[in-house]
């Protein structure tokens, strides 16, 4: 029984990481670069949070 659990977990994690990477490497359409209007909440998992933009700028340098 546990083999199914491990298999299922591996499948799920693979799907999640797969879609996450696919999404990350899909470029945003033009006009959407500066989404800084979303300063509403402090949810740091949101990819539009300003903390991620600062990091990208650092990586670019």
């Amino acid at each position, binding site marked *: *029984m546990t083999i*199914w*659990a491990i298999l*299922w*977990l591996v499948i*799920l*994690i693979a*799907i*999640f990481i797969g*879609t*996450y990477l*696919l*999404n990350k490497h*899909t*470029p*945003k*359409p*033009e*006009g*959407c670069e500066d*989404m800084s*209007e*979303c300063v*509403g*909440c*402090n*949810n740091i*998992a*949101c*990819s*539009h949070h300003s903390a991620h933009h600062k990091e990208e700028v650092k990586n670019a340098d």
Partner: protein
Amino acid sequence: MELVSLFIGLTFVNNVVLSKFYAICPLLGVSKKPKNALNMGYAVTFVIFLASIITYLLYYHVLTPLGITYLDLITFILVIASLVQFVEMFLKKTSPEIYKSMGVYLPLITTNCAVLGVALDNISAGYTLIEAMVAGLAVPIGFTLVIYVFATIRERLEIANVPESFKGTPIALITAGIMACAIAGIAGLV
């Protein structure tokens, strides 16, 4: 017509935001402009509807036959997160206009209590597939209603004469409390 009363019940009486306290973070964070609130509502409706169907099917057709229902939480959160990533990628590729208006809120929905809450509630309330679909529609519509009304009220609160220490979040919360009173008042409807 049990489905209709389920729909009305989840949208108004047991409104997820005002009586079950899901989705409070977006309520306070996104609802400054009514147009933004509506866009958030569209995004949330789409995601929750799909997520409730998919998680329901996965729970009863994959987890239960294999006897691994203890993986329900991990399954649901991974499915919801993948779904959000997929929807965002799909929107980026097919429709930049829609992405521009509501795609901003999609990553926020992953950590939105409402999505995971609806998925878990569908299971624990023992709904059938049709009832889960109705719940998946009613909950986000209720959320959209609340967040839209809230946004319009907040717009006017910005220029109202609010005491200094209540400006911003405190008065917003008290407004939400009054709205919750209103919702509780129609509890006898269903």
